[in-house]
């Protein structure tokens, strides 16, 4: 039974390294997103955010989508797909345009022209542009965030933040979806989706760094003055922490994962010093002793390195001063003392992120591991409103949603 208008339904699909999540939501008349379906399955055939075994990945996606369909009582045909992996890179581009009119008054056409000029960057062979995000305008060298339409000047400039990835890697999940009669309505970079989910407008304005500690990758995005000014992917995640434990403690990966969840910590606490845990095998028989201090140290080294690399990247891109807050999400946000460690390395206040401006079960919207999928819903909402606006010119709604992240694509 159809309970919802088809043109108001949005499905987000995140094919993660540790789990596949599908969330169905309805964008109602009052611009609110209501979650109406949810499906999740353990991920298989995905390493470092990229599909390495199509057959296994297909099955995991099928299970998650099926669960979401059952829950929402809907047959899903289109999804907003999250993408990540080390093939994804980001960079900033600038464009400029001379104001030709006699009165030097900037018009909408000038904005279109300068955007068009800035978009003329050369992509490497095989690359595909995922997002182009407007950061700021410059009128005769004077920076401004808001539209300069109506102002006077002789030279109009714009700075764009672009996220690109390799076509082959981006097509892999899309092709899998097609096999199960699902169409990717649009794709979005997971790091931006997470930022979209967990940051309030105030946090975006003041400046915040969102770090999504996933199983295979760590995605991050920095927002300042209401726009995304930098983003990136580090193909290192929770699996690396587990692999380090497996190597260091000499145990299988699965068991190292259990140890990480049960006894893990991001810092080596005084309480852990000298502490030894006796652990049991699958049969319930105690078969080995694990030094908790060593376990914590292995984890701390890896996590510290991840944060240090992000800090170094922020310095390199000259955006370190833009963030006033760090918001952690993804499954890694559950690691005890992770905020303490992140705060120490990044020298900023840290908090665990939860989705804002969404309606649905708290077991979904308050969980940091679903931030990406929830962000994809918001991205889908924006996309949907754009399409609606294109046909019915609903200007006020467009303006409000544009303020989410000012994404042009």
């Amino acid at each position, binding site marked *: 039974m159809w309970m919802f208008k088809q043109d108001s339904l949005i499905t987000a699909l995140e094919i993660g390294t540790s789990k596949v999540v599908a969330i169905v939501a309805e964008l109602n008349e009052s611009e609110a997103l209501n979650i109406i379906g949810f499906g999740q399955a353990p991920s298989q055939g995905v390493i470092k955010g990229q599909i390495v075994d199509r057959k296994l990945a297909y099955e995991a996606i099928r299970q998650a989508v099926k669960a979401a369909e059952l829950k929402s009582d809907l047959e899903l045909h289109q999804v907003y797909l999250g993408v990540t992996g080390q093939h994804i890179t980001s960079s900033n581009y600038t464009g400029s345009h001379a104001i030709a009119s006699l009165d030097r008054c900037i018009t909408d056409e000038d904005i279109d022209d300068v955007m068009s000029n800035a978009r003329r960057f050369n992509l490497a*062979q*095989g690359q595909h542009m995922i997002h182009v995000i407007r950061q700021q305008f410059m009128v005769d060298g004077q920076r401004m965030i808001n539209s300069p339409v109506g102002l006077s000047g002789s030279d109009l400039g714009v700075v764009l933040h672009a996220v690109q990835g390799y076509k082959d890697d981006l097509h892999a999940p899309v092709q899998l979806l097609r096999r199960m009669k699902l169409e990717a309505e649009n794709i979005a970079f997971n790091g931006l989706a997470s930022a979209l989910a967990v940051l309030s407008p105030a946090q975006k304005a003041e400046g915040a760094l969102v770090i999504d500690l996933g199983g295979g990758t760590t995605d991050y995005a920095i927002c300042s003055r209401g726009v995304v000014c930098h983003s990136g992917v580090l193909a290192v995640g929770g699996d*690396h922490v587990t*692999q380090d434990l497996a190597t260091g403690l*000499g145990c299988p*990966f699965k068991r190292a994962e259990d140890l990480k969840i049960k006894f893990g910590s991001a810092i080596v606490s005084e309480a852990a010093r000298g502490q030894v845990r006796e652990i049991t095998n699958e049969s319930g028989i105690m078969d080995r002793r694990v030094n908790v*201090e060593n376990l914590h140290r292995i984890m701390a080294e890896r996590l510290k390195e991840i944060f240090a690399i992000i800090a170094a990247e922020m310095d390199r891109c000259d955006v370190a001063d833009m963030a006033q807050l760090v918001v952690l999400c993804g499954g890694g946000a559950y690691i005890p003392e992770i905020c303490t460690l992140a705060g120490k390395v990044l020298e900023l206040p840290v908090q665990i992120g939860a989705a804002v401006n969404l309606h649905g079960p708290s077991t979904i919207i308050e969980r940091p591991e679903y931030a990406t999928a929830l962000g994809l819903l918001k991205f889908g909402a924006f996309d949907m409103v754009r399409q609606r606006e294109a046909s019915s010119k609903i200007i006020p709604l467009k303006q409000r949603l544009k303020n989410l992240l000012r994404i042009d694509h």
Partner: protein
Amino acid sequence: MTHSAFPQSGDSPETSQSDTHRLIGIGKMGCLVSSTILERGEFAFKGIALNNDPSLFEDLHPSTLTLLCDGGGNISVHGNAETPDQQGSAEDEAYSLPLGKSSKWAVIVAGLGGEFTCDFMGRVISTLRQQNSMVLVVASLPFDMEGEDKTAVAEKSLNQLVQEADAVIALPNQSYLKKRTQSVKLKEAFELSRRCLTEAVEGVWGMLHADGLTNIRLSHLKNLFQGHHVKGLFASAHAHGEDRVKSALDSLLAHPQMEDGGALKLADACLLQVTGDESLTFKDVERIKRHIRKYLPADKSLVVGTSVNGEMKDHLRVSIVSAHFSGPKPNTLAVIDGNPKPGMEVFQVDIEKDGVQPGIAEQQGSLDEEMVLSGTDVSGALNLETSNPMMPPSSSKRSKRGGKPYFQTFLNLGGKKNGRFANTDPTFYNSVNLDEPTYQRKGVFFN
């Protein structure tokens, strides 16, 4: 000494010469390698062998022009080999050697380290210069176990070569042992070195000589090895069949010089040649390029050459040449107790505080009481020091700290480092493979 004009970008070995190029082997290693190449007959070389032991000449390819050097430094044509045509050479100069008819190109192959090679290499290049030949040298550097004297002689020869030849590719023999245990048989090691040197000469010549769509030129080689980057690597692999790109890449990375791709982390630049039959696609080349790119530091250049050879019939060959920093390796791990060399990365370890502080050893012998961490391979806790060619062999497993036995525990260093990421594209950041456990790379100690 007057050097010949360096070829411009449009030049290739094929364009402006009509005579056969010369392949000159100097010393035992060089003679044997050049003879092997002549026997294979893939390239039309005029072979010349220069040695002080005439018995070696009997084993060489019959077309080889053999030149014997006596104890007094005189060189004469040996045996029944054809009399060299001295046309174009400066016979009136006593310094010149009877190297035969001039050719546009001369490839010298030698194992550096021997006094004989060191003494005569300069004279050979000098004569070639007088004949206006362009000189490419492919040489091997001695194993560590051959002693410091040989290493010093090799370094001296190498410095001389860099000054005089158009391009020099020096391949350290020691790198062949990095993936193998030190128990490798001597004969096997030298044979491997010889095989790799042969492969390098053929590969580099093939790279330059290929009738390419996008060519790699001598200028690329020269730029690659200019400055202080005198040591390099050459590796080549070929594959055929359905997934020949993957197979070729796997074989390439498994090459002894490549250290599973880790050797490229230290590369300052890299030349990549892809050769295939008519079915070679743009995507194949792009895939290979992308894969190799991942191992190279982001700011280092990769020059790609491609050629199509209809005779390859479904085969694909990938060859790579790179120049390495001659300085010590950064961000690496091995444990010894001994004196660090200047510039080597040192971690001062305070076991009681469990802290590890990086620093730089400024003076040899100044850090006797600290443990030194360096080297690349962490293949096993018991032979860590031997895996590091830059470090002197450890004479004792005991720490000098208070004379107490040195006790250190690494957790399971013998395990496979990359685990579940072994078959994925590695994650590099600033030339560090992040797939390897952080604690191992940082040399963190455990109780």
